[in-house]
């Protein structure tokens, strides 16, 4: 067994353990974005696809390189964009402009909730 292989195996096993440790802490709420994020991470296969180009000097090589590059780049670009799109939707509070019903609370006749909502509005107004 070569040194390179032992190194590769060590890296693989350690990465697997790190993965188990890190992923185990992700809450269920985020499991879909998580899967999409890991999806984009395996898009690193694009690097491997591009490296085919180093030795591809005939038609078969070119075809394989082309298809692999299409597959891998669709994977990596699509993965990151859709993950970002999903995570943008996760908000701590409902956005006010999109829910007209919140307006009644903002009128201030709902006690504490109304006051809190007004405070929120004031804060978001400041930051805008």
């Amino acid at each position: 067994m070569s040194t390179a292989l032992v190194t590769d195996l060590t890296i693989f096993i350690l990465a697997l353990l790190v993965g188990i440790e890190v992923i185990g802490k992700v809450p269920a709420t985020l499991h879909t974005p998580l899967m999409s994020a890991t999806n984009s991470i395996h898009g690193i296969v694009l690097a491997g696809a591009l490296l085919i180009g180093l030795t591809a000097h005939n038609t078969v090589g070119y075809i394989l390189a082309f298809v692999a590059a299409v597959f891998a780049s669709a994977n990596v670009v699509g993965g990151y964009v859709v993950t970002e799109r999903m995570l943008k939707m996760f908000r701590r509070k409902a956005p006010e402009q999109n829910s007209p019903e919140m307006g009644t609370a903002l009128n201030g006749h709902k006690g504490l909730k109304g006051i809190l909502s007004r405070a929120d509005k004031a804060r978001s107004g400041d930051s805008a």
Partner: protein
Amino acid sequence: MSGFEGTIQLVYVLAAALFVLGLHLMNSPATARRGNQVSMTGMVIAGVATLILLIHDGTVTTTGWIVLIAGTLIGSAIGLYAARTVQMTAMPQLVSAFNSVGGGAAALIAIYDYINSESHAGGVLGSTTVFTLLDVLIGSVTFSGSIIAAGKLQGWIGGQPIIFKGSRLLNVALAVVAVGTAAFMLTTASLPALFIVVLAALGFGVLMVLPIGGADMPVVISLLNAFTGTAVAMAGFVIGNWALIVAGALVGASGGILTKLMADAMNRSLANIIVGGFGTGDSVVAVGAAADAHVRSIAADDAAIQLAYASKVIIVPGYGLAAAQAQHGVAELATLLEDRGIEVSYAIHPVAGRMPGHMNVLLAEANVPYPLLKEMDEINPEFGRSDVALVIGANDVTNPAARRPGNEISGMPILDVDQAKSIIVVKRSMGHGYAGLENELYFDPKTSMYFADAKKAMAELTAAVKTLVG
């Protein structure tokens, strides 16, 4: 390894470290977006390093450059278009499609490597071959299996388990051929044998997913995700690239964990899911006491009264809600109730939806704040303190029969909906869930059935509550 190559390898390690950091930041919704951006930075760094390596090496032909650039641009455009336009309900299909192309690309890398080294005198190196073969096997199975999974989710292929006479035997035969030929290749370099492995593995992937029913999709997608990761890691072994090895291992770990979580939440073993879906084997036995019991139905006005005068409401969304595109309607009703000072939260079962965490994304899209989305273990003790549990399009995960031994869902973790003071179930008919079992919850004296399509029901309820409270 020259100094230059060593430097590139170190840059790949940096990229891999950023992937880990990015995943770590996903442990909270507040930092998750930053995590994705950190991971993206790692990917850009890895991409640039690869480009520098290609330029520095100087052996890429003009045609080679054209092929690589064209391939990358076309692929990126497809990926970008798909990611921008996909509906959130269609996320499982998209993830499946990305699994498919990721696994496919990994397999192609190994296939190319094999063809390339076989064409040189001396044949293939022993240590590379094991990983090459594993990459080809796993990558091909992932490629075809994920296409079938995406097709089922998209409705191009029937969502029901598809089993034809002798399909299981054929599947076993394909597995034997694929693995057997691969084993043969360990000792003998042979290009035709490689094609046999690819074809048999592709066939196996198709036949592996076809018999799996729609409700088991969360498990299948997770499993194929783990496969893709493993295939990419194997591709990393083949070309000696640490970034691929680390990234593949991370994805493999993630997919593995999610597979286990999903299978546990469905109370089924992985083997059981792969071998065949619910309702395909023995005939379904109805739960005795429930069959002749009485079901109480309710109209919108009465349901609205219950909701409007509650102080704590728990909404239990299931896949039926997403199928009816009712998530925005639910969010509107919930906001209306909250404005009356009613405490509203959502109870999310791990397998609500078509992939892990799917329901959370659908509700997030409908502007439901994530602190209101409660996981099963967190919400279960709260049912006892809630006035109304509003079940929308969820079935098996609310069935109290799971607590008793002796039926299909015995032992399955469920939401304790029956502990609520009253229960309203929105459902189109008395049809069964995927387990083909009567839901005892519907016959509970505290339960009222509101027979309607989820979207229509939400509009009616919202209107009724508005009329009621002015």
